[in-house]
C-alpha cells in the first residue's frame, strides 16, 4: 500500500490524503480541549444543579462502559485466536489487528496486506499485551460507585487521554431550558448577523473558540454543505418577561439586562426545544462584563472632632439629704463623686503593691473557741466548690 501525499498532476481543488489528516488533527485538537457538558452547565452559576434536579444518566454510562469492555475483551480474544493460526493463516491476524487499531494502539496496523509476514506474531503479541493491560486497569473500576470522572477515566484508559465521552444530561429545569432555546431566533431579530460576527471576533481572542473555528473551516473545505460559519442556537437563563435581547448585542436602554444572566451559544444537532436530555461538548465559558454607567467617587476631608464622648453608663442619682429641690452644686458633687469612684475602680491589688500590708483593709477574725466574732471562709469555699 502506498500513500501519495501530494501530486502536482491533480486538479487544484483535489482533496489529498494530508488534507484529511489535517482535518483529523484539527478535530482532535478541538475535541481534546473540550470537556463533556454537565448539569451545572445548563443552568445559572447560582443554582445548584444537583439540588435542582440536574443529573447525569449513570445507567446509560454504565451500559456503555460494559459494552466497551465486552467488545475489548472479545477483540483481544479474537486476536489471540488468530495469533494461534500463525504462521500459516496471516489474514485473520491482519483483520484482528485492524480491528484492534480502533482502540488507538500505536503500531497495530499490519505492515503487509497479504501473504506471509514473520513480524505479525510479535506485532500481535505487543498489541495483545497493550490492550490486556488497558482492559485490566479499566475493568478494576467499581461501576456501582463510579462518578462521571471514573467513567471518563475508563474510556480514556481504553482509548486515549484526549478521548471525550459525552454523558446524557438531564438539565435542572428542562422546561425552562427548552423554552429558552425556543427564543433563539427572537433574540437576534435586530441583528441577524450578530452570532456569526460574535463567533468570528472570538476566534481571534479565545483559543478554544479559535480551535473550533479552525475545525469548522477545515471541514467546510471538504464540501459545499453549509458548515462554516457554524449556525448557533441561542438561549438565555433565567427567562425574563420583557422582550429579550441577546446579551452579546448592545444594550436595549428600555430593557437593560439583569445581572447574572447566562447566555448559551450552541452548535446543535437535533431540536433542543423538545429534548429531555442533552449531550454536548463544553467549548468555552467566561464572564462578560459591561462597565457600570455610574462611578462612585468620594470627597474626604479633615475635621478636628472633639474626643469627648457620652458616658457609657446611666447614673441614677438619689438626693443625699432629702431636700426637695436639686441644685447645681449638689448635682456636680454627685457627678464628681461618681467620677472619683470610677477612678478608684481602676485600682486593684496589683496596683497597690507598695501598701499591700495595709490595703485592702478587710480583716476578718477567726477564733475556733468562739472567743471573738469569727468568719469562717473555709465553709464558703467548701460550698463554692460543692456547687462548682
Amino acid at each position, binding site marked *: 500500500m502506498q500513500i501519495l501525499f501530494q501530486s502536482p498532476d491533480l486538479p487544484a481543488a483535489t482533496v489529498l490524503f494530508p488534507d484529511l489528516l*489535517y482535518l483529523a488533527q484539527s478535530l482532535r485538537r478541538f475535541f481534546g480541549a473540550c470537556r463533556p457538558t454537565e448539569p451545572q452547565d445548563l443552568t445559572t452559576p447560582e443554582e445548584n444543579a444537583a439540588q435542582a434536579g440536574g443529573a447525569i444518566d449513570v445507567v446509560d454510562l454504565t451500559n456503555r462502559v460494559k459494552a466497551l469492555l465486552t467488545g475489548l475483551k472479545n477483540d483481544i480474544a479474537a486476536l489471540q485466536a488468530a495469533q494461534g493460526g500463525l504462521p500459516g493463516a496471516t489474514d485473520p491476524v491482519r483483520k484482528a489487528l485492524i480491528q484492534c487499531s480502533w482502540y488507538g494502539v500505536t503500531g497495530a496496523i499490519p505492515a503487509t496486506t497479504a501473504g506471509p509476514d514473520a513480524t505479525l506474531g510479535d506485532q500481535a503479541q505487543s498489541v495483545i499485551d497493550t490492550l490486556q493491560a488497558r482492559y485490566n486497569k479499566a475493568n478494576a473500576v467499581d461501576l456501582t460507585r463510579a462518578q462521571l470522572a471514573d467513567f471518563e477515566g475508563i474510556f480514556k484508559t481504553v482509548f486515549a487521554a484526549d478521548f471525550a465521552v459525552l454523558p446524557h444530561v438531564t438539565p435542572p429545569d428542562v422546561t425552562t431550558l427548552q423554552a429558552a432555546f425556543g427564543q433563539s431566533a427572537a433574540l437576534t431579530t435586530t441583528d441577524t448577523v450578530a452570532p456569526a460576527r460574535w463567533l468570528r471576533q472570538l476566534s481571534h481572542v479565545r483559543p478554544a473558540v479559535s480551535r473550533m473555528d479552525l475545525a469548522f473551516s477545515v471541514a467546510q473545505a471538504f464540501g459545499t454543505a453549509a458548515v462554516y460559519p457554524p449556525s448557533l442556537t441561542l438561549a438565555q437563563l433565567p427567562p425574563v418577561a420583557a422582550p429579550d435581547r441577546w446579551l452579546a448585542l448592545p444594550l436595549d436602554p428600555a430593557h437593560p439586562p439583569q445581572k447574572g444572566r447566562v447566555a448559551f451559544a450552541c452548535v446543535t444537532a437535533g431540536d433542543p426545544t423538545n429534548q429531555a436530555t442533552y449531550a454536548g461538548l463544553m467549548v468555552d465559558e467566561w464572564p462578560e462584563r459591561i462597565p457600570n454607567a455610574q462611578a462612585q467617587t468620594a470627597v474626604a476631608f479633615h475635621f478636628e472632632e472633639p474626643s469627648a464622648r457620652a458616658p457609657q453608663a446611666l447614673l441614677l442619682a438619689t438626693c443625699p439629704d432629702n431636700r426637695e429641690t436639686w441644685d447645681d452644686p449638689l448635682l456636680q458633687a454627685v457627678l464628681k463623686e461618681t467620677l472619683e469612684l470610677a477612678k478608684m475602680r481602676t485600682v486593684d491589688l496589683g496596683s497597690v503593691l507598695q501598701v499591700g500590708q495595709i490595703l485592702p483593709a478587710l480583716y476578718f477574725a477567726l477564733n475556733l473557741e468562739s472567743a471573738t466574732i469569727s468568719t469562717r471562709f473555709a465553709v464558703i469555699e467548701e460550698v463554692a466548690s460543692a456547687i462548682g
Partner: protein
Amino acid sequence: MRLDRLARATVEVPSITTWTRLEPQARDASMQRSLQAQVRDPLWMLARQWQVGEFFGADAGSPVQATLAAETQTVTTYRPGVDDSATVVLDPSLPVEIHVERETAALKLRGSVQLGMYFEWLVRENGIATPEAVIAAFRTSFPISANVPDPNYAPVSAVRFRSLMAGKVTDGEALYVSAAAVQAGKVPPIPLPAEANNPGMPAVLAAFVSYRASLFSEPQNDPAWIDNQLEYEFAMGSPTPGQNLLLNAPDFPGGHLDWYSFSLQNDNPNPVFTANPAQISPVNFNFFPNHVTFRGVHDPRWWVFEDGMTDFGQLDAEHVDLAKLLVMEFALVYGGNWFSVPIPIPISTLGGPPTWNLSRVTTLIVTDTFGIRTLIRPSEQTTVNPGETAWSMYKLSGVGMRSDFILMAPTLGVVDDADAMEEVLFLRDDMAAMAWAVEHKLQGDLDAPVDMHEAYLDRVTRNPPPPPPQATAGGPQIYYTLEDPVPEYWIPMVPVQTAQGALYLRRGTMQIPTSGGPITVTGRALLLDPGQPFFVADRIIPQAGRLADRYFRRARSYDGSTYLWMARSSGAGRGMGWSGLRFDVVNDMKPVAAK
C-alpha cells in the same frame, strides 16, 4: 463543783484568734471571663472612658451637616500623536483606549479563508442563481495561492492549511478590499468578476462589506503610536473661554488607561477648541458627614471591637520609611478625624456612550453641633513653608501646573487580551556596541504567532551555514571571518546621531551565509515598519531592554457594544543579551577528515 465552775468562769482558757484578710483579685490567668465581656460594673466602664480621655472637654463640636458644591467640566476634543492640527472632536461612542490603540487588523491566510467562507455562505444562503458557478468565478478572481510566500519560516500546519484551502475558497480579504473600493466608487486593485452583477449579488457584496467592516475597529488614518518612542501619545482637550486645558498622555504604553496616564497642560488656542467648548455643570450636595473607615483604623469609641485584619501597631517601620510612617501616623493619630461623602458621578446614560468629565469640588462647608460653619479648603490651598508645595493625590497635575481636578476616566473595565501575535524584544548588546530587535514571534499564515527561534532552528536544519574551509597539506592553516553570523530573527539596531546630537538606533540589515546562498536579515515584524527606515530613540531602550508586541483585544463598552481591535503595547524587557556577533575572527582550519 461550784468552785470548779467559778474557777473556769474567772480564769479564761487561752485561745488563738487569727485574722483573715480578704483580698479581691480582679486579674485572673484565665481569659475566659474577660473575653465574655460581661458588663456588670458601670464604674469600670466609666473608668475606662476617663482613662482614654473621653471625658475631656474640647472647644469644638462634632460635624453634623455639610454642604458640598462641585462642578464637572466635559472633555470635548481628541488629538492623536503630537500634531495639534490633528485635533478632532472627541467621539463619545468610541472608547478612548480603542481610539488610541487600534490599528489596521492586517490578517493573513486564515483571515482570508474565514472571510472567504463567509462570503460563499452568503452567496449560498441568499438564493443566488447557480451559486456554485458564482463562487467559482470569485475563487478564480480572488484565489488562495498554493504557494507559501515565505517557505523558510512557515510552520508545517500553515503549509498544510494553505495546501488544503488553495482553490477551495475565495480570498475574502482581497475581495473585501476590491468590493469596498467599488462601493466607494474607486478603482479596485483586483476587478470583481462579471458575476458580481448577477441578480442579488450587489446586495450580497454590500452585506459582505458591511460584515467585514463591523468585525474590527480600525483607524481612520489617525495613528497615536509613535514609532521611535515605542509608545502611544495622545491628548484630550477641555477648552473653556479662559483656559485650554489639555490632558496629555505623552507616554502611554498601551493596556489599561486611567487618570494617572494623563498630565495636565495649557494648550494654545485651536479652532477645534473654539468650536467645542467644555460644558461646565454645577452639582450641590447636602450630606451628613461619615467617618472615613478603613481596615485597621482605630474606633473612636471605647469598648468596640476593631477589625484585626490590619494592625498598624505591628508595622515594622524604619526611620527612613517615610511613606510607611506617614500612613501609620495618619491611621493611628488622625484616622478618626477624617470624614467622607460619597459622590456618584454619571459616566453615561444607560445604554448610551460614556462622557469624559473633569470634576472638582468648589465649596465644602461643614456645620458642627454648635452651629459653627467651617469652610474646608482643598489640599492644594494648604499653607506650606516657602519653597514647598502642597501635597495632594488623585488630582491632575502637570509640569509646573497643579489643579484640583480629578478625572473619572470612563475607561473599559475588563478587556480580553489575546496572546501576542507579534513580539519584538529590543535589547542592548554591549559586547557588540549596538542594540538588537529580536523578533521572538511573528504573525504566521494561520494568524497566530510563529516562534521564530524554532523557525530558525528549522531553517538551519534545512539550510545550514556553509562548512568552514578545511586545511590542506601545504595550504593555509587558518582562516579569517569578517563577522560571525547571528540568527536571522535578530535585527541589528545601529546607533546613529542626528545633526542636533540626538542619539537614535536605526534598523539595519545583515547578510547571513547559508549553504543555499546568503540570507538578508531585515525586519519583518510590523512593529519594525518593514519597507521603510525605522528609528528608535536611544533612551527608549534601557539596559533592561524593552518588549513590544501586537495583539488582539476585545471588550464591551458602556452601551454593550463589542469591540475587537489590534493593539500594541510595550514594557520592560528582560535585561541585556548577547547575539554572538563578533568581528574579525581568525580560526584554525580543521584538516580534511580521512575517508
